[in-house]
């Protein structure tokens, strides 16, 4: 504990406070504006919802969250263990392939699976044609299990990514230590490495949780009513934005509770290593039946999560002959990439600064955590918060300049800021996870040698968390490309993205025409994933 005293943690210099506030407050502002909705209570709407659908949607949301988080947690850990800790044929290439579902937006996988497995889709129609009387109506894919399957297949990479990084860097020394004590490889895996990877698993599962409860696109395709259904019903159906905002707050409170719990669990643990990040791992070789099983599981997940949806999209693209998509495909791709690049730079800058501040001054943790809550709010609702804040800013500018014009509203900067607020969580989790693997002793050593704080950061911490930054950048880049509701609402004229096009076409039931822009999103997302794969091979 002497080292901690030496670093004088807990003393909060005003500069750090200002920076934290500079990032934290704008990030929280849309949330605060939405909280203002509580000043216009709508007891009639709350009463109606409570009497009719609220019970059902709460139950659906909770069960969906539990199944999806459990599924992603289990699958992510299993896959990470298989490809990072074992040796079997195809393991090397699978390390990268299993990341590819990151490029699939949940709503795209949802509409593909709905198209394939619905009661009128090709699979069920085929079986029905074999024995129509016996088969009858068949099964409805749009149940809890169908939605969960789709979400697990698209969201497991969050857990897989963070967990694999943990296994790769943590596993070795600890496995060795455990083995010298006589444990078998598998046992040491479960008893030692897994518990030590808990914070990364938890970080990944937290992202999955927030994505699941904020999701609207995928559950809408399946007509599966979750809490977001109630939120949009209040806004679009019952014409009350206030009630919708109040309901969103319930989601936010739930997430805050989970985050606090996770933070409590994490603070009791210490997870440092002292070595370099990349080491040659000691892999557990699998043979015979076990190798086949491992291969089957990994390839199966890849096929279901990526190969099958992509093949279907290619097929549908061909069917629609790539019909006219106005404005030109190149424009949409360009807009999407440009927004993603700026958004990622902006978000990661904020994420790194916040991660550094949190590490140095743990008392800032609540503010930092609050700033990352944008991820848990349904996209359109957060966008409304941003629109209201931007309106306020422009009104203020108008008052000062005496001239009413739109400065922030309708600008690409507002959209980029929106991405930052929305995806700060993803970048932050990745960077913080990397930070936690670094012992404070390194910083102490540098301080002892006389290095100033800033120099210490760039010379010591930064190279060590570089992989965390890269991971975070990848996650955020792909997220921005897939993002639809905030982009739809905040974008300037002529800034349609691929996701916007997919929405326009799927909301009209034009699956085949939507396939081409959907393919564009996936392909553009594959590039950063491949970059990450290349980076890890070194």
């Amino acid at each position, binding site marked *: 504990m002497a080292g901690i005293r030496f670093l004088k943690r807990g003393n909060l210099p005003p500069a750090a406070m200002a920076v934290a506030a500079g990032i934290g407050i704008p990030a929280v502002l849309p949330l605060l504006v939405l909280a203002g909705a509580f000043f216009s209570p709508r007891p009639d709407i709350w009463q109606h919802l409570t009497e009719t659908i609220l019970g059902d949607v709460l139950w659906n949301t909770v069960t969906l969250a539990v199944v999806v988080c459990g599924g992603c947690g289990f699958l992510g850990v299993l896959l990470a263990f298989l490809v990072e800790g074992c040796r079997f044929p195809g393991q090397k290439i699978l390390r990268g392939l299993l990341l590819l579902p990151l490029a699939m937006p949940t709503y795209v996988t949802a509409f593909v699976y*709905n198209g394939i497995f619905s009661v009128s889709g090709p699979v069920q129609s085929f079986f029905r044609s074999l024995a129509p009387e016996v088969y009858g109506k068949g099964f409805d894919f749009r149940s809890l299990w169908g939605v969960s399957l789709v979400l697990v297949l698209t969201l497991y990479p969050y857990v897989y990514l963070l967990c694999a990084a943990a296994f790769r860097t943590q596993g070795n020394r600890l496995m060795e230590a455990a083995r010298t004590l006589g444990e078998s490889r598998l046992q040491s895996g479960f008893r030692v490495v897994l518990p030590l990877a808990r914070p990364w698993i938890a970080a990944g599962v937290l992202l999955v949780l927030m994505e699941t409860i904020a999701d609207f696109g995928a559950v809408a395709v399946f007509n599966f009513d979750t809490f977001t259904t109630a939120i949009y019903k209040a806004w679009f159906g019952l014409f009350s934005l206030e009630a919708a905002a109040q309901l969103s707050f319930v989601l936010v409170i739930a997430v805050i509770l989970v985050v606090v719990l996770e933070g409590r669990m994490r603070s009791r643990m210490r997870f440092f290593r002292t070595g370099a990040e990349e080491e040659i791992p000691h892999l557990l070789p699998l043979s015979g039946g076990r190798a086949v099983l491992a291969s089957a599981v990994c390839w199966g997940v890849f096929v279901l999560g990526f190969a099958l949806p992509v093949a279907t999209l290619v097929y549908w693209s061909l069917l629609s002959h790539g019909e006219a998509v*106005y404005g030109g495909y190149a424009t949409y791709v360009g807009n999407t990439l440009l927004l993603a690049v700026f958004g990622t730079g902006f978000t990661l800058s904020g994420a790194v600064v916040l991660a550094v501040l949190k590490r140095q001054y743990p008392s800032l943790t609540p503010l930092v955590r609050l700033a990352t809550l944008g991820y848990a709010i349904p996209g359109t609702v957060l966008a409304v918060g941003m629109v209201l804040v931007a*309106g306020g800013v422009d009104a203020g500018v108008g008052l000062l300049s005496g001239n009413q014009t739109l400065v*922030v509203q309708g600008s690409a900067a507002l959209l980029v800021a929106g991405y930052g607020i929305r995806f700060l969580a993803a970048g932050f989790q990745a960077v913080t996870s990397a930070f936690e693997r670094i012992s404070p002793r390194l910083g102490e050593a540098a301080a002892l040698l006389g290095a100033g704080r800033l120099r210490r950061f*760039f010379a010591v911490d930064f190279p060590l968390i570089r992989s965390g930054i890269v991971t975070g950048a990848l996650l955020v880049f792909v997220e921005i490309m897939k993002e639809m509701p905030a982009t739809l*609402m905040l974008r300037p004229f002529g800034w349609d993205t691929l996701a916007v096009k997919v929405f*326009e076409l799927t909301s009209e*039931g034009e699956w085949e025409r939507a396939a081409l822009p959907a393919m564009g999103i996936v392909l553009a997302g594959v590039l950063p994933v491949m970059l990450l794969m290349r980076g890890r091979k070194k």
Partner: protein
Amino acid sequence: MVFRFFRMVLIGLFMTVGIAQSYAADEVVVYSARKEHLIQPVFAAYTAETGIKVTYLTGKAAALLQRIKAEGNASPADVFLTVDAGNLWHAAESGVLQPVRSKVLEKNIPAHLRDDKGRWFGLSVRARTIVYHPDRVKAGTLSTYEALADPVWKDRLVLRTSKKVYNQSLVAMMIAAHGEKETETIVKGWVGNLAAPPFGNDTKTMEAIASGVGDVGIVNTYYFGRLKRKQPDLKLALFWPNQETGGVHVNVSGGGVTRHAPHPEAALQLLEWLATEKAQRLFADLNMEYPANPDVAPAAEVAAWGSFQKDTRPLIDAGRYQADAVRLMDRAGYK
């Protein structure tokens, strides 16, 4: 290296802040909830004819409304276009649209398809009608929307989700016609007859009928047209209900001039053009809809579905009773 990166981000950010956008005099700005592929050709034709540039932005109706409201007097939107009378009514009630007097619009658009205060005008019409499988259902057994609640349709009815505004408008007009209590009984009857949980869209509803999951459903005519175009051999037929009791439920897509339009005359000019023959034909044909202008004939493909008695009660009721319809459907368990 890191500083260069940060600098790049900051510079990029400043570059993308929208400085007061000025619009040329010969330009009109449209915020549209009607999808791009359905409006772009129409606007292109307008520009070709008049030389006036149309700048447009698409999005969800409620989100666009929120954006216009937040933008206030600085909003660049001249025209707000959307789908469904409920959305148009709500836009008018929110104060986003301004009333206009126009002889052209009043002459070309029937009274029941526009706002009584001149705030919005329907531009194309779609019917929400009954679709059935001709092998398993005899047309003679069909009569009205309300009759689909009869037990004879048990396990045979398929419907689209109640969350879609088209169904909300249908039920809203039923409330206007029958009152809440009777409508609730009818909707409960529908729910009891469902062969499968409600589908996310009309196309899936029709595919369910074609594949044998259900026998009868309610869809918008243009979805029927689109599906038939893609799969002409599909066994589906249209039926026009309520011919003796008011007529088939219809709805519109349309628009109005925004309250703080920077170019209100240009906005009105665009709307008036949209109500005239050439534009009406193009606007409607793009989506297999019926022109709102009664003097313009629908496309041959659409006309082939047959003529029918339309419900001519004012569509303002679709908006006025929408919230009631949503609550009613929740109470009836219609998902």
